[in-house]
Structure formats: C-alpha cells, structure tokens
C-alpha cells in the first residue's frame, strides 16, 4: 500500500460525531484520518431519527452543548442544507392531562431561563399547530429551535466536506502508546497509523476502544426501535411527542420504556419512536417494543391507525451512567481524546462536540466548560 500512514489525528468512528470531529479538525488545519470498521454511519448514526433537539433537555451542560451545536448546525445547513434534509421544523411536546401540562409548563419555564425558545400552546390551539393530533389533549409547548436532518446523509456529507482520509472497513484493534503512556497512533487489522492524537468517536463501542488504550469508559448500549410507515403526504408537521418522553430519557431503568415520538420526514414516511431498554447488543426483533410504539403513536395521531407500518429498525444508543457524553482529553493517556457516549442525542450534539475537540487538538480554549463531560469522571465509582 502506497498510502502515507502518518497524520496529525486519527478519528476512530465514522458516525455523526466522528464526521463532525474530522470536519472541524480538518478546518483547524490538521491532517485527519477517519477510520471505521464498517461504512460511514454504519452504527448508531444510521439507526436513529436525526433529531437536533433542545426540547427534551433540562437546563445544564447537555442543554448548553445542544444550543451551541444547534448554532453550528444552522451554519452547516447553509453549506449542505438540502443534501442532508435539514429541516428547521420545530418540536411540539403535548400533555394528555392537566397535571402533566403543569409539569411540562414548569419544565419549559426552566428551559426558557436557560436560553431555549418555548411557546405555550393551549388545548384549543393545538390543532392549528398539528391538525391531525388526537382530540382532548390538555395542551402543549412548541419548541421552534428543534430541527431534523437525515443522519446517514449528514454524516456522509460532513466526511466529504472534511476532506479527511476515510479508511472504512478497517478495524482499530489497539490505541498504541509509548512506554510512558503517550499516544503513538492506532493499530488496525491492516497496518499501523501513526499520529500524536487519537479521537475516540466509536459511539456505543467507545468503551471497547478506550479499553485498548488501558482506560475505563463505561459506555453501555441502550436499545431503541423505530417504526417506519408507508410514505404519506405531510400530515405530521413537527416532531411531536408526549411529555413523559423526557422522564424516559432520564431514566436509569433497564426495563423496556416506550413513549410516543412521531415525526414526518422529507422523504414521506412517518418515523415512530421511542423505546429504551438495556439488553446488551441484542439485535433480535421485539414485538412488545414495536407494538407499544404503534399504540403510543396512534394515541397521539389517530389517523395512524389506518396507515401501514412498512418496517422497523433498531439501534444502540451509547449510554453513560450519568447520561452525559464523554468529551475531552483523557488525562490518563496523553494524546487520547474522547467524543462518545451521547446516548440518543448524538446527531444534535455532534457539531458542538467536533468543534470543542478540534479546539483542544489545536491547543485552543474550548467555547464551553468541559468539566461535566470529563472522560475520567467514572474512575472513583470503579474503586
């Protein structure tokens, strides 16, 4: 192979986060190699819905990262918008009962104080916003900042725009270190790539990659199904979900949780989520999960009862115990950076993550405080 196997930074993982790291690192002037054992968007990126959400995030570091990231997405959309099916369509969270609406209102007030735009929608105005919603809902909140992209296209276009060398179908087997522990590059199943910096953007498999560098990062898979309907004219205008979704996202339970999340797509099919369960990397179909998704969606949008589901797919969200990603330099292994563990929010959080990582790689000061995302924060609990 005549390829030059030396570069400034190796990004491991060609999902959305890896693509964003490659893009911003390249734009910071670094020579980047992007390595993945499969194709671009072959893992969790290709198995999601492409949500760029602020609506489901409580005030705190993840929301700050989401807001930062949304601004970057808006810039990327100017370059790539139609190609990645970017839609600034907004989200609508609905409450079925008055108690739920009160809780939703309080949650939205906190988000508003943290910089999120929220618009309360009274029960009698819900159908102006979403004409096909079920009757009798207590009310809702509109989040105009929520957006959507087609995630596999988005990752692919970011990789292309980065100009990084893409080495797909190549498995990283080890992060190489000097005797003193500093990063030297990576070993792959097809040779060594030398670089002084390695970015772990391996998503749900980020814990395995970290282990090859001798460090612990407890990323666990949290399985989710998406049900896909036949293509329809645009009947669902926003991303629409029930208020209990936020509680499910924040839950630590291993048992099956489902809460209805419904959205149309530029291509026509309606996507129905969201289920969460911790069952390892089990790829088998689950009728109880998919049945619960269908039931929840038809409660929100009764017309879906007469619409055919064409297929379903599943993916594994990279979940860290405190529901925050690992972003930043790993003090245990100089030269190793982590950008993984974004759970179900990785598409939305990717540009912000990539931008912060690029700042660190080029010796600058990141725009956000990375302390809450410190990759070594789980050390204590392990002992």
């Amino acid at each position, binding site marked *: 192979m005549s390829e030059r196997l030396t570069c400034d930074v190796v990004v491991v993982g060609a999902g959305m986060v890896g693509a964003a790291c490659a893009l911003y690192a390249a734009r910071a002037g670094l020579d980047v190699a992007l390595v993945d054992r499969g194709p671009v968007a072959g893992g969790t990126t290709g198995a999601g819905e492409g949500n760029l959400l602020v609506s489901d995030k409580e005030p705190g570091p993840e929301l700050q990262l989401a807001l930062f990231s949304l601004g970057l997405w808006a810039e990327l959309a100017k370059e790539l918008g139609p190609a990645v099916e970017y839609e600034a369509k907004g989200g609508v969270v609905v409450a079925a009962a008055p108690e739920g609406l009160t809780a939703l209102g309080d949650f939205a007030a906190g988000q508003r104080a943290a910089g999120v735009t929220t618009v309360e929608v009274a029960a009698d105005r819900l159908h102006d916003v979403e004409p096909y919603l079920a009757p009798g809902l207590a009310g809702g909140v509109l989040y105009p900042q929520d957006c959507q992209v087609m995630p596999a296209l988005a990752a692919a276009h970011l990789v292309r725009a980065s100009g990084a060398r893409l080495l797909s179908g190549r498995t990283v087997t080890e992060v190489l270190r000097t005797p003193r522990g500093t990063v030297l590059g990576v070993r792959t199943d097809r040779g060594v790539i030398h670089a002084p910096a390695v970015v772990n953007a391996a998503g749900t498999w980020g814990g395995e990659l970290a282990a090859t560098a001798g460090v612990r990062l407890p990323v666990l898979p949290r399985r989710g199904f998406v049900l896909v309907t*036949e*293509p*329809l*004219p*645009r*009947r669902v205008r926003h991303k629409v979900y029930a208020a209990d979704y936020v509680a499910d996202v924040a839950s630590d339970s291993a048992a099956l949780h489902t809460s209805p999340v419904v959205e149309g797509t530029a*291509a*026509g099919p309606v996507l129905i989520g969201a289920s969460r369960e911790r069952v390892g990397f089990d790829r088998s179909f689950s009728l109880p999960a998919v049945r619960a998704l269908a039931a929840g969606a038809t409660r929100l949008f009764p017309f879906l009862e007469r619409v*055919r589901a*064409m*297929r379903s797919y599943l993916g594994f969200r990279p979940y860290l115990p405190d529901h925050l990603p690992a972003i930043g330099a790993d003090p245990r292994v100089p030269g190793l950076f982590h950008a993984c563990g974004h759970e179900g929010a990785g598409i939305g959080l990717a540009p912000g993550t990539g931008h912060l990582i690029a700042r660190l790689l080029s010796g600058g000061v990141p725009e956000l405080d990375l302390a809450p995302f410190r990759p070594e924060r789980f050390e204590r609990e392990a002992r």
Partner: protein
Amino acid sequence: MNSLRLARSRPGPAFTVTFDGREIEALPGWTVAAALWAAGITSWRTTRHEGRPRGILCGIGVCFDCLVTVNDRPNQRACLVPARPGDVIRTQEGTGHAD
C-alpha cells in the same frame, strides 16, 4: 424456452387481474410483480419528488422500490403481494395518498 416447461411446472388455471383498467393474465402463485412483468409491464410507480418511473429493483421485499396500489391500498410491495383473481392494480403516483 418457456420457463414453466423448463421447471416442469403445472400451475392451476390462469385468472385475470387488471392493471390501470387493462386486463392481464396471471397464474396461481404469482406475485403482482410477476404478473406485471409477464405482461411486459416494468414500471408501475412514479417517485415522490421527481415523478420518475419505478418497478422491481431487489425483488425480495427489501428495497421498497416496487410499491404499487392494489385494490385501492397504496404502498404495497408488488414483489411480495400474491396476485388474486380480480385484483385491481393501479399505477401509484407519489405517496399513493391523495391530499
């Protein structure tokens, strides 16, 4: 050579379905796609955005390219749906749903 003879197949008697109002013949066990192909029809859907012609691509239910309207129900995979006597098959335009 006739493929039925090649496989020594002895299907039951042929029946009739319609495609956009025109009668075509089908044999028991054929899918809608097989009946359309046997009648020389290779396209029965137009794409949602650009109105391009579509028919069979994968032929095994994976790609959803061959969607068609059968008995007023749109978005059925022609390669999987069995043809039945009297089926009314129509070209599907866009999503197949009026709006």
